């Protein structure tokens, strides 16, 4: 456990000092929010009674969380190519400790950018209808998503041959919300995309957040969302453990 804390402190210190990445992680979400609400928002009809800013906030939160979490892949890959992982392994540090360190730092980074997105959203006219418990639950769902994507990023970072390759994963994760109900309802998409858009993890997670924050029907989405996050987390932990033990860089 103390190993995890030492490595978490390391990752937090490194994140804090990577000024350019930190600025990107904070500014990008705000820009995306303005982009969707102010530029696209006027032309988009969601077929609900919600204003577009209110409709889209859960999606932007997920987009930002996904982006910021997937940056973990680059950080982990830098640890691999820089020889840090070799040193840690030769010191008998467990792979799980490294994973916890990177995931905890990612969660902390996300907390900062999440709060910023919410503040900007409220300024742009976001109208949530949630009481304290629902806010807490939303935070929990978002955290589950962040932990799942960050853990998956650790596995990707261990697998990738170079930090540049690892950053490709960021694009994949950033693309997912577009093909989900995050920005427009799935029924407005072409038929061939419905299957994917309705069943990929971002859609149930978005719908769960929407339900909690705006009072729209949640249905079975909450269960599916949690199952997705738990599944991704489990697979990532197993994959990272195996990759950490076998990594032959």
């Amino acid at each position, binding site marked *: 456990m103390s*190993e995890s804390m030492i490595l978490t*402190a*390391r990752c937090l210190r490194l994140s804090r000092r990577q000024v350019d990445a930190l600025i990107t992680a904070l500014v990008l979400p705000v820009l995306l929010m303005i982009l969707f609400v102010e530029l696209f928002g006027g032309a988009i009809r969601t077929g609900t009674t919600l204003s577009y800013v209110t409709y889209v906030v859960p999606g932007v939160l997920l987009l930002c969380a996904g982006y910021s979490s997937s940056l973990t892949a680059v950080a982990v890959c830098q640890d691999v190519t*820089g*020889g840090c992982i070799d*040193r840690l392994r*030769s*010191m008998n540090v467990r792979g799980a400790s490294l994973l916890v360190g990177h995931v905890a730092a990612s969660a902390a980074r996300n907390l900062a950018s999440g709060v910023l997105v919410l503040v900007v959203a409220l300024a742009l006219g976001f109208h949530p209808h949630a009481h304290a418990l629902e806010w807490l639950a939303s935070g929990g769902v978002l955290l589950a998503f962040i932990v799942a994507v960050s853990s998956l990023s650790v596995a990707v970072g261990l697998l990738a041959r170079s930090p540049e390759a690892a950053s490709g994963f960021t694009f994949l994760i950033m693309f997912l919300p577009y093909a989900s109900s995050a920005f427009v309802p799935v029924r407005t998409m072409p038929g061939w995309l419905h299957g994917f858009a309705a069943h990929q993890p971002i859609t149930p997670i978005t719908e769960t957040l929407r339900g909690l924050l705006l009072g729209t029907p949640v249905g079975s989405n909450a269960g599916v969302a949690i199952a997705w996050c738990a599944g991704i987390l489990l697979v990532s932990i197993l994959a990272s453990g195996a990759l950490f033990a076998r990594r032959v860089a």
Partner: protein
Amino acid sequence: MRITYTIDSKAARATRCSEEPVLEATGLEKSYGEVRVLAGIDLRMPRGGVLALLGPNGAGKTTAVRILSTLIRPDAGRARVAGFDVLSEREQVRRRISLTGQYAAVDELQTGAENLRMIGRLRGLGRAQASARAGELLERFDLLDAGGRRVATYSGGMRRRLDLAMSLVSDPAVLFLDEPTTGLDPRSRQTVWLLVAELAERGVSVFLTTQYLEEADRLADQIVVLDRGAIVAQGTAAELKRRVAEQRVVLTLAGPDALAEVAWALGDRAIEIDREELTIVAPCDGGAREVRALLDEIDPGRSAIDDFAVRNATLDDVFLELTHV
């Protein structure tokens, strides 16, 4: 002066080295797909010794270090390091070794002191102990002034020194150094040599890999020459030099045709052929009689060879000869 120091300490060490090996490997094999990186090597290093694994790029040096430092498993063979088996007692081995890899594994965005403290904490030291240890090592490695600065501002030599210091936080029984001076300027290389010699003096067993003969010669009691995954020679630097002729004759040829002709006449004896400079290097004992006989034999027409010079064999000559195709 530095050379004297190294030689003295080597002699002192030789008398102190006990016979009990701190590192012993037999029949290590490793392949990646079709490529046989290690073709069954045996290694033995006495406690307190310094062993250099010397070889060109791709000889399998790093693979050997990675097996011995428990990072990868060999396909076949066994190895014991610091008294424990690298496969079945991996954790015991890891507690007693330190690895300094080919690239300085230091966090650029942490300060030197932070890097050292982190390693100390991971090695199980308390907060205060880790700080004290970091301070000691910064002083010993001449980084006291730079300790509070981020590593990103360090020179290559300073990074290497910090990297070495990080490996010594735990007082390892065996220190693995994978190409410790690759990419360093000559001055920094000298400093690293001095530091490694000092460590050996303090009784740390050092297993290092290098492509530089000079480095192996300076630092190691024992040199193992590795080429394409197999050991082609081993011994002290003096023993290795003795294995090949002490002198070299460098022939300068009249033209490309003459070069081809003389190279053919020399056959296996030609150690180096330089087609641009039109020179050929061959071994000899340096005596007038042998040189005269050699020249008569390979150039009976007395027109192919323009010039010749006799010089002492360097370790590079030894290396080239041992790793000869």
